[in-house]
């Protein structure tokens, strides 16, 4: 199988290669939830950071949004690239450092609508894996330091981009909508790597819940704390904004009253039984070393 050949790299070819996204749900929800609070300066145009209210306290909201002018050509449609990865890490680490001596830790809300990680030569060359580790590591550190971290999936949550922006959250909330999807890889690439046709992939996905792209299947894996059905996820009404805000508040309360700061709450679903079983067996076998 041969991939689509692109002759020369220019912004124009990129726009035709992928359909350019005219709107960004991440941006819409970031603006609604922060109520147009000032955006922290000094970040890339693709990384929005603002400190705004959540249940009467100051929280840090973070989103990755499309930037058609991004100087890295493979990062213009809301992908998480080199700069985005490190900037996410920075946005989170700044909060950890600022709260170092404080008893109360600032909550962090990751507004998640990430098309994918960036696929490109520049990205591999400069170590995009390390940049995404900067982000994933910061979110995990924040959670372990006691910051309540909430991931709100409003659009795509794809693969490495999701690992970098949101997957380390104490609680994950998703809007249940056809445009919202979580997956490890786009369909065409996944088909190529597994030597299957896209049709065969879709047939398996219909029977095998972890292979599906929709949010109901994802929820069946036990990874979400809540999914929300909204009529207008692209243009939320005041009532719909309130539904999401209430869900964030409930998640915040649930986290602050929970002594457990790891991800073990995600292990209870029927479709994720083996993950729990493995841990049970490991624990049973762990001790027993020779003295």
């Amino acid at each position, binding site marked *: 199988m041969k*991939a*689509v*050949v*692109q002759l020369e*790299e220019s912004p124009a070819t990129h726009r035709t290669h992928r359909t350019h996204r005219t709107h960004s749900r991440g941006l819409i929800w970031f603006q609604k939830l922060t109520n147009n609070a000032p955006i922290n300066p000094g970040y890339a145009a693709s990384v929005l950071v603002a400190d705004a209210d959540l249940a009467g306290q100051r929280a840090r909201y973070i989103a990755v949004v499309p930037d058609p002018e991004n100087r*890295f*050509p*493979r990062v213009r449609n809301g992908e998480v690239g080199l700069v985005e990865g*490190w*900037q996410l*890490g*920075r946005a989170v680490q700044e909060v950890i450092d600022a709260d170092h001596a404080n008893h109360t830790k600032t909550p962090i809300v990751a507004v998640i609508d990430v098309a994918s990680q960036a*696929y*490109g*030569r520049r990205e*591999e*060359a*400069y170590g*995009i*894996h*390390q*940049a995404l*580790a*900067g982000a*994933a*590591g*910061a979110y995990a*550190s924040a959670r*372990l330091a006691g910051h309540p971290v909430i991931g709100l999936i409003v659009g795509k949550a794809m*693969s*490495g981009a*999701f*690992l*970098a922006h949101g*997957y*380390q959250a104490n609680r994950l909330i998703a809007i249940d909508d056809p445009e919202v999807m979580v*997956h*490890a890889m*786009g369909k065409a*690439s*996944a088909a*190529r790597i*597994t030597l299957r046709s896209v049709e065969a992939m879709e047939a*398996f996905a219909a029977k*095998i819940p*972890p*292979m*599906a792209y929709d949010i109901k*299947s994802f929820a069946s*894996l036990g990874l979400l704390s809540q999914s929300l059905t909204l009529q207008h996820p692209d243009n939320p009404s005041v009532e719909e904004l309130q539904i999401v805000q209430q869900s964030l508040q409930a998640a915040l309360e649930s986290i602050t009253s929970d002594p457990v700061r*790891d*991800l073990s709450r995600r292990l209870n679903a029927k479709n*994720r039984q*083996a*993950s729990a079983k*493995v841990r049970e*067996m*490991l624990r049973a076998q*762990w001790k027993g*070393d020779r003295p």
Partner: protein
Amino acid sequence: MNIEQLLKRDSFIELTARDRARALLDAGSMRELIGPFDRMTSPWLAMQGVVTQSDDGVVVAKGTFDGQPYLVLAIEGAFQGGSMGEVGGAKIAGALELAAEDNRNGIPTGAVILFETGGVRLQEANLGLAAIADIHSGIVDLRRYQPVIGISAGTVGCFGGMSIAAALCSYLVVTQDARVGLNGPAVIEQEAGIAEYDSRDRPFIWSFTGGEQRYHSGLVDACIDDDSALMRTTVRDLIARGRPAKNRSERYQDFLACLDSVDASLQATPEMVRNIYQKGLSS
């Protein structure tokens, strides 16, 4: 390596995951958890007519390294490309979680992870991804107590979400045969076109993601010859260094400063990367 050295050496790359773990731990100290006879196989592969393996491609080896309790988590690249499914992923994450718990209980258990992996197992897609998030969490927790040492020796390489895991380790060791990168070459070619990345051009691929390039760009801590004894010595040296003052994944200021000096209108070359990172990361 000269001919005499070549004849004497005991290749690490040629070993299976289980033998690599045994070669690293103190002689006679290795005990495997959830070994093949426990028959914890992937529940999802069988449903798709794919042959399972009774360790799901991951070896959890507990033992000692120079007397200190150590865990070696070894991924078998020969099974499904070292891909992370639910069971294998849970074996790694669960073991890291217990090692961190040991430390909280005063037992200084450390970990070495052998990354021979293409990343998420696409037949278990979202559960592989979830397991990798758990692995990230486990490494970040454990590295607060003990250095977590990653090794990518060869020949599968280390890709996808597991390359992020490798980049979260306190230290990372590679050989010349290793490759470390986020996206596999075939995926980049599929997503971005062959002009961006030619997945069949092996010298090109190694020049960007190969062990030596990663070492000279400061993205790994050691690039060594393929020799089991040397691997053990290298691990010993890294353990002796203790936890780094700042993990590489926490150096956002240094990396952002480097990226500021990148002319992104030009396609990258290996030399450009070395120059920028050697200057910016040396401190």
